[in-house]
């Protein structure tokens, strides 16, 4: 073991988090000092954007010298960097997509951006964490700031409720996770994933007790990624939270949670895959079914997207179940493609929903194509990607996932998964048809044109979706190189 005192390398590998923390603190401090009455603080917004961009640069730079940091607390590798960049990118997109909403609700202030950055910092920690305690703290940082963000509209009943539910159930599930951590610590005498892996590989740890801790941790992680039967919180929370926040929640924290899920279960518990794979199998199937079928009946589009995000978590679970580098790579690719799509879709929703989120019914999207063609076009791109129509990122996500599943010999899961995605297409297409073929609704008629920032957000997300759909190789190659966890 090298010296306990951190070296410069340690700090470089921790740079993204440092940048995010510093900028976030700066935002927090500037908040009381910058005050113009009409709740609009572009300077803070740009500061946040700059901070995120800088953090992304830092993350990429840190990858130049991969390796462990802070006595093995962190492990900067391709996998971690992939997810760090992903969550930071999601954050950037969220900032652009949120601005109209925040200004409309007179809520654009430093706190929002500060919390966003802190939450992202937590997710970066999760992405690179190689030790259960720092992982837990990162998870809590991300979660607690998400709770606050979900309840950010103090005066809105739905926002309160979603925050409360998210908070209560979230900490409840965290309790289970922590219990699992305690057990794994007790059994292996360490919380460092590498050490745990080595200890388990060496054997001598009682498999049944090990399964105990694995199960407890599974509960915690499955909750965070909203995998059945722990998905119950997601629809309510996403529906009640402010749309930009829902967008962020369904993309960033979920991706980070999957990152730790994958890392822990493929490295630490990799040796006992035969025990956990069947449980994942069931959970994946259940998740897909619950998400897709419950979404069929939704008229509130935010809730529909919430269920769809559950369904997509199910697909990723399929990839995790296959427990192979191919599967891991597929999951990474899928999460990347899904993050952009979802943030974009929610951005359009928040745009149509108008002040106070009055118009969140699917009927409110009627005739969007006639009035706001750009919004309709990007929404179509996002939804086709969610359906999995070729030439969009979603198609390849599914393709790789099911290919990985077949390589792992899970024919039935593949068949059922494909059936699910066949069902899923229905509720997305419903919205598309409504947008293109119906007479414009009241909601659509009274829409003001979107701000340039929001439009940029849309176009960026849509472009990313198509780019990943037409040239997936680059990202996939990186993913499959990064997917080898050890």
């Amino acid at each position: 073991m090298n010296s306990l005192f951190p070296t410069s390398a340690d700090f470089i590998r921790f740079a993204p988090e440092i940048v995010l923390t510093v900028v976030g603190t700066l935002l927090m401090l500037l908040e009381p000092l910058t005050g113009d009455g009409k709740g609009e603080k572009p300077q803070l917004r740009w500061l946040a954007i700059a901070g995120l961009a800088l953090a992304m640069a830092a993350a990429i730079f840190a990858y130049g010298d991969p390796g462990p940091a802070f006595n093995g607390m962190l492990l900067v590798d391709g996998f971690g960097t992939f997810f760090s960049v992903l969550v930071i990118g999601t954050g950037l997109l969220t900032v652009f997509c949120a601005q109209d909403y925040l200004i409309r609700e007179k809520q654009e202030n430093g706190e929002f951006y500060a919390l966003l950055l802190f939450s992202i910092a937590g997710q970066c920690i999760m992405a690179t964490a190689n030790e259960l305690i720092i992982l837990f703290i990162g998870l809590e940082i991300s979660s607690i700031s998400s709770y606050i963000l979900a309840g950010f509209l103090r005066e809105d009943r739905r926002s309160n409720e979603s925050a409360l539910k998210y908070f209560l159930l979230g900490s409840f599930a965290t309790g289970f996770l922590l219990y699992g951590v305690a057990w794994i610590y007790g059994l292996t005498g360490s919380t460092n994933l590498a050490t745990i892996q080595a200890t388990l590989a060496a054997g001598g740890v009682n498999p049944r007790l090990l399964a105990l801790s694995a199960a407890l941790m599974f509960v915690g992680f499955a909750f965070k990624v909203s995998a059945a039967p722990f998905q119950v919180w997601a629809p309510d929370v996403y529906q009640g939270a402010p749309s930009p926040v829902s967008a962020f929640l369904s993309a960033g924290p979920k991706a980070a949670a999957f990152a730790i899920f994958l890392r822990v279960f493929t490295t630490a518990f990799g040796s006992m895959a035969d025990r956990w794979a069947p449980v994942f199998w069931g959970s994946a199937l259940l998740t897909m079914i619950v998400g897709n079928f419950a979404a069929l009946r939704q008229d509130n589009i935010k809730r529909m997207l919430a269920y769809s995000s559950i369904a997509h978590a199910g697909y990723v679970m399929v990839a995790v179940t296959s427990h192979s580098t191919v599967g891991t790579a597929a999951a990474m690719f899928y999460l990347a493609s899904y993050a952009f799509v979802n943030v974009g879709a929610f951005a359009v929703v928040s745009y149509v929903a108008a002040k106070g989120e009055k118009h969140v019914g699917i009927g409110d999207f009627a005739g969007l194509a006639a009035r706001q063609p750009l919004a309709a076009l990007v929404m179509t791109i996002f939804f086709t990607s969610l359906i999995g129509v070729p030439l969009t990122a979603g198609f390849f996500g599914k393709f790789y996932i099911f290919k990985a599943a077949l390589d792992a010999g899970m024919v039935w899961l593949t068949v059922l998964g494909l059936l699910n995605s066949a069902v899923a297409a229905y509720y997305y297409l419903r919205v598309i048809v409504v947008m293109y073929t119906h007479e414009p609704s009241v909601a659509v008629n009274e829409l003001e044109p979107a701000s340039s920032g929001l439009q940029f957000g849309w176009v960026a997300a849509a472009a990313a979706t198509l780019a990943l759909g037409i040239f997936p190789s680059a990202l996939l190659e990186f993913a499959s190189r990064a997917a080898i966890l050890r």
Partner: protein
Amino acid sequence: MMLPNAVPVSWYLILSAILFSMGVAGFLIRRNIITVFMCIELMLNAVNLSFVAFSYELKKIDGQLFTFFVMVVAAAEAAVGLAIILTVFRHRMSLEIDDVSSLKN
């Protein structure tokens, strides 16, 4: 009854398991949001006991450190959670957890 002349660590673990389950049970059956939240604290305390017990078993004090961090997390959660409860109360004028169910289906 004759008491054993020493307590194995496993008893502490079982105590912690019992307390944990109590917390869960409270979460399920209580209606006052604050009490429900307290049940979460109970769960965390139970876990802390496990940590400390294990650290005794292993004769390593890492476990105690984890307990520190858990406490900090608990404190932060308490601060935020209670704030959220305040906002909820402001609109609902009630702390009945079943009154907070307008988002459903």
